């Protein structure tokens, strides 16, 4: 996996120049287009609705914290954040555990149908998952899973498996056979080898697939929209959508709620940028 070298390219080969003014001007323009709307929403949350109606493009005058405190104390924000977190952690755990086991078997053992199984998962990448949402709902309804965390976690794990296996497999194949033999001589069975040798060695790849699964789950909308009718189970994306359609006149409140919903993703991205970007790049490069 070259993911990390992608983000930090070979240092020291050529001194980093300051760059031309034109480079900086263009880079600043790109950055401005990317984040200006986001800054606008966050700053807008510090205004009052009359201020916004009066001058939609102005700055807060005076700055008010009231919208943010109101959202944090009086809305369902915390419960929705909790639901999002439970579903995202459940999904991540499922993806990492099942993905590791499946990729381990495909990567380390020769058995009849191994190539077929591998092609099956690789082809899974090409499948348009969104098209399956209606029959998926019907299946989950027949299984009595509607309005439970499982209704979101199980399909998300299933849909994430192909990409997980495609990322993990080369990692697991690259672990030298000698290590396995050595572990066997020391008395480790296959599970012991998986647990004590493979798991620690493949941690970077596991972190990457875990983070990708977490972010995808945290942002998911269509599946929760259909299977979580119960308001008390709503996740943050559903909460943002509901809040904005419920309080259409409370523009400042909607801005504050939207900002707060963005915040975890922004913090998470800043902390795990290398894994997210590297994972996406690694996934596509195979």
């Amino acid at each position, binding site marked *: 996996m070259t993911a990390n070298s992608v983000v930090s390219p070979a240092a020291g080969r050529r001194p980093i120049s300051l760059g031309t003014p034109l480079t900086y001007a263009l880079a600043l323009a790109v950055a401005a287009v990317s*984040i200006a709307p986001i800054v606008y929403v966050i700053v807008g949350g510090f205004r009052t609705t009359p201020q916004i109606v009066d001058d939609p493009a102005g700055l807060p005058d005076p700055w008010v914290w009231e919208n943010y405190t109101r959202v944090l104390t009086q809305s369902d924000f915390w419960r929705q954040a909790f639901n999002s977190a439970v579903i995202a952690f459940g999904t991540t755990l499922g993806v990492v555990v099942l993905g590791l086991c499946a990729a381990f078997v495909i990567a380390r053992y020769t058995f009849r149908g191994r190539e077929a199984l591998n092609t099956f998962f690789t082809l899974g990448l090409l499948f348009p*998952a*969104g098209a399956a949402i209606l029959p998926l709902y019907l299946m989950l309804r027949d299984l009595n899973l509607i309005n439970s965390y499982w209704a979101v976690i199980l399909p998300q794990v299933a*849909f994430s498996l192909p990409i997980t296996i495609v990322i993990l497999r080369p990692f697991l194949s690259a672990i030298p056979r000698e290590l396995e033999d050595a572990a066997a001589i020391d008395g480790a069975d296959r599970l012991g080898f998986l647990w004590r040798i493979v798991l620690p060695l493949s941690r970077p790849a596991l972190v990457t697939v875990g983070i990708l699964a977490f972010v995808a789950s945290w942002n998911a909308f269509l599946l929760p929209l259909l299977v979580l009718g119960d308001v008390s189970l709503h996740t943050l994306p559903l909460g943002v959508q509901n809040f904005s359609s419920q309080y259409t006149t409370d523009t400042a409140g909607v801005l504050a709620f939207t900002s707060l919903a963005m915040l975890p993703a922004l913090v998470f991205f800043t902390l795990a940028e290398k894994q997210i970007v590297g994972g996406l790049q690694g996934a596509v490069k195979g």
Partner: protein
Amino acid sequence: MTFVLVPMGFAFYYSLFRWRGVGPPTEFVGLKNYTLAFQDPIFLDALRNNAIVVFGSLLIQGPIALGVALLLNRRFRGRSAFRLLAFVPYVLAEVTIGIMWKLILTGDGTVDVLLRSVGLGGLVKPWLADLDVVIWTLLFVLTWKYVGFAIILLLAGLSNVPEELTEAAAIDGASWWQTQRHITLPLLGPTIRIWMFLSMIGSLQVFDVVWVTSVPAVRSLGASATMATYMVDNGFFARLWGYGNAVAVILFVISFVAALLFQRFLLRRDIEGAITRRAN
């Protein structure tokens, strides 16, 4: 796969019935749901909108992403910070950025005021309410959101271009532009094709941003509907389960055929190179 293939089998079965989703389907209607869909002008609008999103995304995001990736691939201080900022829209949830743009683009909202203040008041439109404008507004929002993804991929491709090549070209007296045009771009081919493929499949199934940003009334008139929103509106919310499943099958077949065609003609070499080589 089980969660895709098996459901699609069920979807085809249900699509042969007129069924409100309660009890087992009994009213067999054959392929009538399919003919109904292709006779519904709203569905045809949705097809047209999906085509606009597919080709609009490729034609607009491609050149922008290429330009930005080449820019952010140059060596300069603070480059990683600029990269981080360029990726931000891509990691935020579709729903939150959808609501965000809805607030910004609302009538007499920020965009309108800003346009007027720079003397472009004549351009002000009901961005999300005008039936002829809304799909282009949505295309803009989708471009803003997903161009970061294209940039991420292209930067990965660029990092694989051996520095020796560009250095050799520079020694031979090639300008920066000539180097990019004759060395970097050809080597980026596989990355560009994989991005095109992912973008196309995503565009065919686009739902979240469209659903959240556009008003239901505008969507129900077809102006901002896509196949996916049409499917959910009819199948789930209007409880026309047989019909909705027929739309699901159409969406699936279109996406899958597009994927196969793309793979057959453009992607095969790349996938063989990228996935099978590493997998073995």
